[in-house]
């Protein structure tokens, strides 16, 4: 298992490297001279040129790219923001907690609603409750989250005046955004839970559990749910990634000072280093969540765990003839 996790970490390196090269290239090719944007239209040509040289942006593409990667790998240096002159890492770390909080709260909301209604509508298939929830879920998955965010702001802030529309100055500001994002992804989780649960309920081992005399609620919670969760976990992991990235839009709608808004703002300003660092950071977070999901899998499903164990063991045994012989004797 540990070996597997280590391998997954190593596999993240090429992925992240790819992300760096990709984002770097796009930002490099984006028209607009960053020094000109920073200094404004009235600045002199010399001043612009001087700033460019100072930041090293006049050097050839390949030199800049290798320099950038080298600095990250060797010194953990992501460069400095054009606009503020602050280290990029510092800016990101300031903003990331907001994004993480938004994503975590949203995932919590989506899990609570998605799982609950998924289970309920699966166990009461074709009931009115099932039909209502599935219709809502269909509505939910078909609505873009930023649009839902705008509508929710109009309703709860402008019309009803219950909640603030934007900003982050206390808990009230943290109700609408996670609810909008969370309910949106709850729709996918609910649909997945429902279909997975319907599949599991028909399995023979559920009948075995009933044949033992187990109560219906325990049959569902103890036997069906854990099996039904296996595909749901994948969806939750994907949703978490989407929430991390999707927060870019929602943070803008609700004016939350998160990483997403930092990236959007920096794109407008051609603040290359911040955009690159920010995207890289999101990619890292996404990969880590994916890894976490895979590890979680093996806790839910023992079959997956033993797969890792078997492959780990086999590799060890190939060069070791004595062990091999012992095993053969044992299996005989």
């Amino acid at each position, binding site marked *: 298992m540990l070996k597997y996790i280590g391998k997954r970490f190593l596999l993240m390196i090429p992925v992240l490297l790819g992300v760096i090269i990709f984002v770097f290239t796009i930002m490099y090719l984006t028209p607009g001279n960053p020094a000109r944007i920073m200094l404004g239209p009235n600045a002199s040509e010399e001043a612009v040129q001087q700033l460019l040289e100072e930041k090293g942006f006049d050097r050839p593409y390949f030199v800049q790219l290798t320099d950038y990667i080298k600095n990250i790998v060797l010194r953990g240096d992501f460069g400095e923001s054009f606009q503020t002159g602050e280290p990029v890492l510092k800016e990101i770390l300031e903003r990331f907690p907001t994004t993480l909080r938004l994503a975590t709260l949203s995932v919590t909301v989506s899990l609570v609603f998605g799982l609950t209604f998924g289970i309920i509508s699966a166990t009461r298939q074709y009931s009115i409750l099932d039909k209502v929830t599935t219709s809502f879920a269909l509505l939910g998955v078909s609505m873009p989250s930023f649009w839902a965010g705008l509508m929710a702001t109009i309703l709860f802030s402008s019309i009803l005046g219950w909640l603030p529309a934007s900003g982050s100055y206390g808990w009230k500001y943290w109700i609408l955004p996670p609810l909008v994002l969370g309910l949106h992804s709850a729709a996918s989780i609910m649909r997945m839970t429902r279909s997975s649960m319907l599949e599991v309920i028909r399995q023979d081992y559920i009948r075995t559990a009933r044949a033992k005399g187990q109560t219906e609620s325990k049959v569902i919670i*103890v036997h069906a749910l854990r*099996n039904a969760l296996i595909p749901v976990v994948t969806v939750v992991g994907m949703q978490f990634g989407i929430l991390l990235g999707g927060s870019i839009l929602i943070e803008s709608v609700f004016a939350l000072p998160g990483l997403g808004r930092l990236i959007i703002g920096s794109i407008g300003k051609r603040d290359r280093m911040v955009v690159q660092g920010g995207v890289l950071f999101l990619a890292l977070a996404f990969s880590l969540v994916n890894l976490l999901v895979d590890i979680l899998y093996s806790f839910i499903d023992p079959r997956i765990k033993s797969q890792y164990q078997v492959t780990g063991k086999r590799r060890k045994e190939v060069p070791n003839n004595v062990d091999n012989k012992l095993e053969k004797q044992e299996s005989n």
Partner: protein
Amino acid sequence: MNENKLLEIKNLTIQYKTDNGLVHAVNDLSLSLKKGESLGLVGETGAGKTTTALGIMNLVPDPPGIIIGGEIQFEGSDLLKLSKQNMRKVRGEKISMVFQDPMTSLNPVMTVGKQIAESVRIHETLSRKEAEQRAVDVLEMVGIPGERFNEYPHQFSGGMRQRVVIAIALACRPDLLIADEPTTALDVTIQAQVLDLIANLKKEQQSSLIMITHDLGVVAEVCEKVAIMYAGRLIEYGTLDDIYNHTRHPYSIGLFSSIPSIDGDEERLRPIPGLMPDPINLPKGCSFWPRCNRATENCKRAVPALIESDPDHWVRCIHIDKAGFFEKNAVSKKTDTSRNESITHTKDTDVEIDSSKLEESLASG
């Protein structure tokens, strides 16, 4: 109800509502079982054996299944009238079931030990520790080392899994064990072991057994009584000796003549040319007439009644009377030399032949 009777099914009718129509899975079935008795329920795939068993357990999947009517008397009460709560007390404690496919009937994400202990804890007030100890004991009883308590189903072979399923079923020492084709999904070499296990445990625990199978060899090994089902109906019922040595019903006779030998009984039964009728569209009259080589016009009129051809030997065929009219005829026509000697049909000489019926049947066949 008779003191010694453990289970008495009366006129049980179960149907499935499907998009293609109403499936008449079990039709007006009556059966009874004494304490400690083993009954073999035999029939082709689709005859309604599993549905009957699920009916007894009150586990017919609904939808699409509906128990249309009948009674299932068990220890003084009608199982079909019990509350859900009381029925749960019967399941697993009084009546247990072993399902056909051990590969799918265990929960893949729960250790086998827990799955056995769960059964114990539902019905008995035991601490977790005590229940686990009991599970270890039961595991060893079915021939699995207790150390494997914490292993998951996928770590066991098919035969071992079926032992686990049997352990779950027997953990609370039920009065009645229903084994639904417990060996069909297993390798030949394992089949005998599992059958022996069931037979021995049944004896030890003094429980009754309904052994569902399409394999007459299995029945001969473990059962005292045999019931043969066809298209949801019981068509012949009697002691092992009645069914094996005094086979009456044309379908049963066909079943026996299809067995190549008593040990090499791997193949599914496809005894008589033709297929079992579609239970959505059962033929009028005797459901067997399209395949019966002795059918007459009369057979198509009404469902034949069960007739007691010998004491406690019941047959559902209009051309059978107390004398077992078809017997000789059937033997001469159906027996071939490759059939195993141990299955011999009656050669009683005191058979009265009703010549008018004989002529009628020969003319039509």
